[in-house]
């Protein structure tokens, strides 16, 4: 039994017929074939599957795709524009804000939402802000440094703040 949904993902409207039980993360990865969004714990703990749903960072393993009908989704694929990395991506690369990279897409999407709300966050605000995203490699030090650096880059060139859509 299918429900027809339209989701604007990274600026492009995508239509599909889905079962109501299909999770948003499976819709993104398996129906749309966009595998930048990762599945980690699958139990609402780790934040690897974080995407922006109507601008809010959410765990896409805990949302049904039908709930996103008529709404906008931004994934890690929507960060870079015209072949140029988003300042958050640049900062994660330059500050070595990752080791294995598994948590990185979710971490960057959370950082994206955080920096929209708090353009000049303190270290404490960053640490609280990413407390729903687990990293088992870095010990978080370089992730925090990357988000700080990204905040500076974005304040220097606010025109680069937006992702696609």
């Amino acid at each position, binding site marked *: 039994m299918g429900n027809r949904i339209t989701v604007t993902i990274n600026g492009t409207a995508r239509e599909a017929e889905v079962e109501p*039980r299909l999770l948003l993360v499976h819709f993104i990865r398996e129906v749309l074939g966009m595998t930048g969004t990762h599945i980690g714990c699958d139990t609402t703990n780790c934040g690897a599957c974080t995407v922006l749903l109507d601008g*809010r960072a*959410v765990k896409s393993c*805990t949302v*049904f795709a039908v709930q996103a009908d008529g709404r906008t989704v931004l994934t890690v694929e929507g960060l870079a524009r015209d072949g140029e990395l988003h300042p958050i991506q640049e900062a994660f690369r330059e500050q070595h804000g990752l080791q294995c990279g598994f948590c990185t897409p979710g971490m960057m999407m959370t950082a994206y939402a955080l920096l929209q709300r708090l353009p000049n966050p303190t270290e404490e605000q960053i640490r609280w802000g990413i*407390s*729903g995203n687990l990293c088992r490699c870095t010990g978080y030090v370089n992730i925090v440094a990357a988000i700080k650096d990204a905040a500076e880059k974005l304040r220097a060139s606010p025109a680069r703040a937006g992702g696609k859509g």
Partner: protein
Amino acid sequence: MIPASFEYFSPRTVPDAVNLLVRYGQEAKLLAGGHSLVPLMKLRLAAPRYVVDLNRIAGLSYIREGDGALCIGALTRHGEIETSDLIRARYPLLADAARVISDPLVRNMGTIGGSLAHADPAGDWGAAMLAGGAEVVATGPGGPRTISIDRFFEGTFVTALRPDEILTEVRLPQAVKGQGGAYLKLERKVGDFAIAAVGVGLVLDGGTCARVGIGLCNVGPTSLRAEKAARSLIGRKPDDAAVARAAETAAAECDPADDLRGPADYKRDVVRVLTARALRLAVQRARGGA
């Protein structure tokens, strides 16, 4: 993990949602933030045949004061309460509780109404609402009715809501002069459920306690009200001796179980310590301190 199949409805009004509950009864589940329901469905601990998504009903998300009450729409997200200027300025009990519920991503989805209706004894809002003297508005086929929070939690995951009722609003007494509150939680790691947590809401009048509510989280089969502890303070000055006595009473009133978060005796002592600290902080705030 894949949930069992279900039929999905997204009504646009509360009466439409109530009609679906009337039609499908216990086979239907309401979906608010979904951050308790969806994990349960993925684990197949819940397999409702019908899911009624409340998220497309307009007008269920608000925080406003009026007629002597603070009214919070059932669909208001934890994060919206956490960042509300009104809550931060006037309702420290709620501000404290909102920021320690799970993690920021969950708080972007989870709702106050969903959390209360789920009635998990580990839910932070239950203890906070018991401390604050809340009532909930339940809307069914006959319209809305109010239920005191003291009669709301009937058992673990069981509430006074009827199968055809939707929790639509939460109300608390409007902040008055001399009001203070606090919510303190001990957790193994950030984002976890509480080992134990304690909420306090009180009103001081001329230096003595005119109203006291103490709510306890995750130390019993439901969210608990530490009624004797609260009563021991009424009409008294909340000095060190009175606070210590109330904290010991609260520890005696709770009913924790041994589990992965610690043995019962330890949790009981956590309740004693957190109750004393929360009372002192609430008193300090009631007197105008930070």
